[in-house]
């Protein structure tokens, strides 16, 4: 890694750690920013890098929430009894129980969602293009409806997570750092993944799947693994959200197809599909735009958001990073280079 890059990454990491102390009143917004970065980066694994535009990744978010809830409650109390009481009973968690639930719940959410992605992918990866998008959206909507009729996990009323045993300000800090750690791990993971042969293979699937098959690439295997990895991170992020929100219900919060389910796609489109930094940049742009409109144009915020989506889709289809690549191709290594000019190993 070059010195310039090291300085950049070091600065960003320092900023990440210091952010909740620099802006103590914005801890929740900063935590949401990290959530957007996580869902955008993991959406881009399939949408941008592999060319499979899923509209159903919210399924993993919602499922992650519920898995985390069931695990956290289940290790201490009976889940059915707990949801029947709907907050009426007296249920307390010790520090140890709370954090054990958090650790196990988040891990279980990730793993369960990865498994779900494998199973759903087995069926839906037969679909291409818009059919895949609609097919996955259908899975997410159906899951929301199913869960809202499942009384064991609280049905349409939703389910309550245990309260944080410490004070509320500290709780916000814990949530922020959980998201941040997951986000940093995800970023490092994809930065590594896109450098491997695996990364190249999923790019090949995006550019021409028929060709990739004809060249002997294990297309289905790579597609399933990619989606499972993506689902792991969305599911884990959902688990953290479950703890953050304390109470959530299936249709508006967990399987919120029209909010977060679309926002994650918009983030990636804003920043630039199929690039490492695009989803991160896009998530920051989106979150700033969203907070600004929700604060200063209340009542018109959805109109403003719709207008933003239209402008991006019509004028900036390649997003910020795509625009940058068009303006500064040399920054991305696009150049004609004769043999004499080459410094690296020629044959």
């Amino acid at each position, binding site marked *: 890694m070059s010195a310039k890059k090291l300085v950049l990454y070091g600065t960003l990491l320092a900023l990440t750690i210091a952010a909740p102390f620099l802006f103590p009143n914005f801890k929740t917004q900063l935590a949401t920013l990290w959530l957007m970065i996580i869902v955008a980066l993991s959406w881009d694994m399939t949408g941008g890098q592999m060319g499979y535009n899923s509209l159903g990744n919210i399924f993993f978010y919602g499922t992650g929430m519920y898995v985390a809830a069931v695990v956290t409650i289940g290790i201490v109390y009976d889940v059915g009894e707990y949801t029947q009481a709907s907050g009426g009973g007296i249920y307390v968690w010790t520090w140890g129980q709370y954090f054990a639930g958090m650790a196990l719940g988040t891990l279980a959410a990730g793993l369960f969602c990865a498994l779900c992605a494998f199973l759903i992918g087995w069926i839906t990866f037969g679909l291409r293009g818009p059919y895949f998008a609609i097919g996955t959206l259908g899975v997410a909507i159906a899951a929301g409806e199913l869960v809202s009729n499942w009384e064991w996990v609280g049905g349409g009323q939703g389910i309550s997570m245990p309260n944080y045993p410490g004070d509320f300000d500290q709780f916000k800090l814990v949530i922020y750092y959980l998201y941040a750690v997951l986000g940093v791990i995800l970023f490092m993971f994809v930065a590594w993944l896109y450098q491997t042969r695996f990364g190249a293979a999923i790019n090949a699937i995006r550019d021409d799947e028929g060709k990739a098959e004809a*060249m002997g690439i294990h297309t289905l295997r*790579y597609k399933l693994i990619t989606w499972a990895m993506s689902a792991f991170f969305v599911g884990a992020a959902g688990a953290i959200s479950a703890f953050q929100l304390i109470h959530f219900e299936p249709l508006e919060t967990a399987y919120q197809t029209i909010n977060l389910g679309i926002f994650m796609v918009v983030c990636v489109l804003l920043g630039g599909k199929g690039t490492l930094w695009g989803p991160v940049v896009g998530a920051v742009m989106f979150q700033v735009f969203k907070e600004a409109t929700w604060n200063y144009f209340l009542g018109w915020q959805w109109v403003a958001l719709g207008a933003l989506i239209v402008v991006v889709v019509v004028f900036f289809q390649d997003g910020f990073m795509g625009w940058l690549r068009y303006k500064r191709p040399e920054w991305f290594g696009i150049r004609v280079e004769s043999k004499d000019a080459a410094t690296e*190993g020629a044959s």
Partner: protein
Amino acid sequence: MSAIIEVSGVSKSFGGVKANADISMTVAEGGITGLIGPNGSGKTTLFNSIVGYHPIDAGSIRFRSQEISRMLVPEIARLGLLRTFQQTRIYGAMNCVENMLISIPHRKLSLMDAFGRNTAEDHERALHMLEFVGLYEKRFLQSGSLSFGQQKLLEFAMALMNEPTVLLLDEPTAGINPTLINGLIDRLQRANSEFGITLFIIEHNMRVIMNMADKIYCLAHGQMLAEGRPDEIQDDQRVIDAYLGAH
């Protein structure tokens, strides 16, 4: 020379159109076999049947004595039986080097290998092959921005990168500048003689195919019309009639 691909009694229909009817032929190991015929005579359909692109209605296709007519495209490709496309298919958003690196032979790759990076040797081979087809200077350009002829050359280089045993080429010289064609013929012959790759080529350019092939098959209306050495095919009245439309 023994037969590496044996096609016997293969038929394939699309609705009412009999694209291939009872086709039997062989491709000799280590040689260059040609497939000619007027437009719509079923050449590409036969290619597609061999590489598993669609199921066949009847007959058998064997590669090294192994029945492959029920196998899937990537499985057949991993056996070392590779094809290029008439319309040229490359990964347009990536540069030439990346296109080459993706084309490393995946049959030799375990899942763990896939999570590794490309080796220095892979890079060296990629550059060597790009130089072989004359695209070295353009290696960092997005391959989608190359001309059609250059994309064809890139696709050929990608196929070589995959170290196939047999390479099926669908009209390799179509759309290539006439002055480049001689260079391409030379490279195809070198791929055959130096790398030992068996070639099976669909070609409309008679000068090209007559110069290169050891044996030529001619299809017309989905049926095998004639087979033989290039000089025999050239003098075959049935072939001439088929091309001029008397058939």
